[in-house]
Each structure stands twice: as C-alpha cells, then as structure tokens.
C-alpha cells in the first residue's frame, strides 16, 4: 500500500498495525548511517514500518499464498524488482539485525569498548548491550547520540596551527614522530599529495587516540579557531580500517585511495573535484557503488582529455 506523494515510503496496513501495536517510524533505517554513506540499507530510501520495540518476540507467520491486497503484507515502493511483497515481520527482523551488527562493528572499528561508547554517548551500557544483541530498538534520540560518537566526521576537533596548511602538516608529522601516534591524512592534503590538482586549505587527519593528539598539538601551539575563523587542522577519530589501510606517500601517512575518494565525495563542495580527480587518475581507487558529483567529473575529464 503506497502512501500518496512519497514513493519511498509505505503505509502500514491496518491488520499489521493491530498485530503490532507499537509502531515505530524509522528514518535511515539503522543506527549511524552517515549522510551519503552506504552501509547496508540505502539511506536515500525512507522506510517507515512496523518494528517491535523492546525485547523482540516475533510472531510466527504461516507461509501461504498471498495476494498484493493482503493486509498482512507490505510493499516497498521504488525498488524495481525489490518491490515484491515483503512480510512485515521479516522486514523488521532484517532492520533489527542491521542495527545490531552495524553498531557492534562500528564500535569495534573505533577500538571503543561498550563502556567507552556509553560514557561518550550518554547511553547506558545496559541499553547498548541490549541494542547490540538485538533485544532493543534504539529510539531516534539514541541513534543520534550514538552517531555523534561513531561517525568520525560527526564531531571533528577544529584547530588552528600556524597560518598555513604547511605549518599544520609539519605539526602533525612532528607529533607522530615524537609520540609515535598513528594517523592518516585525508581530503585536501591527501588529494594534493597524490594529484597536485587543487590547492589544499585544511589538514584533515584521522588520529588515535584523539585526546593524546589534541594534547600534543596544543603543546605545539595549536588552538581552537576564533569565531568565524577557518580551522586549518581538523582531527577525526580514526577507525581501525582507516589506519590499517593507510599508506606512506612523500613522507606523509595518507588514507587509502578508495577511502580518500569516499571521504571527498561525501564532503561535497570543492572536495567533489578531488574525488573525481583521484577516481580518474588512479584506477585502484575505484570501488563499486561510489558516487561522484557529475559536474566535478565532467570538469576533470574535460581537463584531462587530450587535444583532438
């Protein structure tokens, strides 16, 4: 059953709503899908459906022949072949499983214990455990609080270190060498090192541990920018895979090329040009499902094209 106007949502049939009185509307169907990221469910699709909240006791559904008008079925619109009838309970289970696995993987990827995540997000450890074990569906507020901690770009640390990008880059290298702390540079500077295409304005760097990096950089003169001033150094909490896939190029530890393309494409604006340039120049950066701004790609291809 489609709700008028929005092709990406479906209406909960009356029969299902009666069977599951606790109706939960889910936007961006699982925990911590950053804008533009593609983990599991496509975040561009809005899913509104029935989801049992609290300890899950999914009713048994007897398989039988169904017609499209059957009130016990829902149909997800806009999915092409996927627009086949789906059982609401099955869909709910999938969403729950996705939330559970995604939260646990992302937490571990950032080397955070449940206690760390609980302290940083303000969500009780008991709740986290229940969510990770698929026994509780997080509310929108809980998901937002978790996202603030789990998404490296959600709460970056903005600093000013000297006046130019080169000074900030030197400071990062000096701290890494002196304290033996891991890092991986992304966005502006990483793209500049690889392509020399677009001048960098800010050093974006994944670091771990964030607190130690902040202390060390402050000791080297870095400070939060004044109101309205642009930061020239931004620290991001580094996930495991970012650090393990990093590569040293021209004395700087850079994120992998595919990560660079993903980060640049996701940030948009002028970063989109970096994404397109790296994508075109380095075939090894390409991964299925990457989305790059069409105008940026056109500009890069036009400039890279030989004279005819």
């Amino acid at each position, binding site marked *: 059953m489609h709700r008028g106007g929005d092709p990406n949502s479906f209406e909960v049939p009356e029969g299902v709503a009666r069977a599951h009185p606790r109706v939960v509307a889910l936007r961006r169907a699982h925990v911590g899908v950053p804008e533009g990221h593609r983990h599991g469910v496509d975040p561009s699709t809005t899913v509104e459906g029935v989801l049992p909240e609290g300890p899950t006791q999914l009713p048994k559904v007897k398989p039988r022949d169904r017609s499209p008008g059957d009130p016990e079925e829902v149909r997800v619109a806009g999915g092409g072949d996927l627009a086949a009838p789906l059982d609401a309970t099955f869909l709910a289970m999938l969403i729950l499983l996705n939330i559970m696995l995604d939260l646990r993987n992302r937490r571990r990827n950032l080397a955070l214990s449940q206690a760390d995540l609980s302290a940083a997000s303000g969500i009780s450890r008991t709740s986290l455990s229940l969510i990770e074990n698929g026994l509780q569906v997080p509310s929108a507020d809980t998901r937002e609080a978790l996202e603030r901690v789990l998404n490296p770009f959600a709460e970056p640390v903005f600093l000013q270190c000297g006046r130019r990008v080169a000074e900030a880059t030197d400071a990062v290298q000096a701290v890494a060498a002196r304290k033996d702390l891991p890092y991986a540079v992304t966005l502006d500077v990483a793209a500049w090192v690889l392509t020399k295409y677009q001048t960098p304005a800010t050093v974006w760097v994944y670091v771990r541990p964030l607190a130690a990096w902040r202390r060390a950089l402050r000791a080297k003169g870095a400070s939060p920018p004044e109101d309205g001033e642009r930061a020239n150094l931004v620290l991001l909490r580094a996930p495991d895979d970012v650090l393990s896939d990093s590569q040293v190029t021209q004395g700087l530890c850079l994120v992998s090329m595919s990560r660079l393309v993903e980060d640049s494409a996701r940030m948009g*604006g*002028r970063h989109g040009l970096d994404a397109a340039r790296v994508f075109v120049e380095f075939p090894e950066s390409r991964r299925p499902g990457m989305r790059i701004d069409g105008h940026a790609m056109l500009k890069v291809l036009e400039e890279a094209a030989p004279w005819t």
Partner: protein
Amino acid sequence: MDVAAIVQLIEQHLADRAVFIGGVAVECYVPYRTTHDIDVVTRERDFPTLKAALLRASFSHRETHLAKHTFKSPAVGEVDAYTSRIGDVPVDEDLMRRARKLVYAKVPVSVASLEDLLRLKLSAGREMDLTDVAVLLHARRNEVSVTLAERLVGRDVLRMHAPRVSDLLPQEYGWQARRALKAWLIDVGWLVPRRKGPSAP
C-alpha cells in the same frame, strides 16, 4: 612556470584590459582552494595580444564550442579566455568597468567585481561554484552591493540558490560562521527562514 607566472605574463601584456574571473579572482578576495586553470576575460580587439603572449609561452590554442578560447600547455596548465560570453553571461563593458584591482601572488591584477563573480558562479550553479559563493559571502559579504547583485543575478535566482549556498560553507569554518551567513542571507531577503510546522496537539 606556475599559475602566478602566467597571471603575471597576462598582466604584463594586457594590464587592465584583461579581467580575471574564476579561481584566480576568488583567491584574490579570499584564499581558499583553487585548481591550476586560469579564466580571463578580454575584449575581442585585445584577444590577439593575449593569444600571441600565450603562444610565445609554449601554449597551444583551441576555440571551443562554448565560445571560449582554450590554451593548453602540458607543462604549465590551462588558460580559458572569454571574449563574447561566459556561459550564459555576456561579456560587456560594464563587467570590465566594474573590475577591481587586487593582488594575486604579489602582482596587482584586475579581477571581476564581487557581484559579477556571484553572477558567474551562480550562473554555473555547480556545487563547487556554490561553495565558492559561500566562501566569498562569508569573507566579503559586507562589501557586496545587494542592489547590484539582485540586478545582475536576479532575486529569484539568488533565492533559489541561497539555501544550498548557506549549507555549502565548508565545515572547517565552523557552525557559527554558517549560522552568521544564514542570518545575513535572511536579512537581505535571499533566504526564507524555515517555518516550524504546527505543533502536534
């Protein structure tokens, strides 16, 4: 030879008769991110001088279907010269007259006025151009003539792009800067404040 050297070369040969637009102009107003291509506007009668100077500097020339002349050099980069129109925007005497003298890499050069730059960037309408508009307005909004900008660009176009512009101010400027830009856009009437929906009973 780098971008600065090419800009200097053009300035030496044409002085005020060449007006820089694009990345060089944005860089003059507010240092941000630019690519290595140079966009320059000249009158039709001054184009042969520009062409001769660039050909002497080992550029090769091609006139494209976009009413622009492209000069390319594998070692140096690209110069795009416009004499009749820039995309949909005509090259007229007013654009040349409104140009400002600013400094690029220690060389005084003629660059398009802020209002003309806004017009060109908004006319292109790509995400990268709207980001430049956001950065320009963040740094130089007090110098923008709202009346002139509305006359050149059109109030409807400004209102159409304003919501995206305010969102595209790069993150490293901080949320305070983004909020201040939004407030200014609302103040000049280019951005309509979002109304809160009726509260649920």
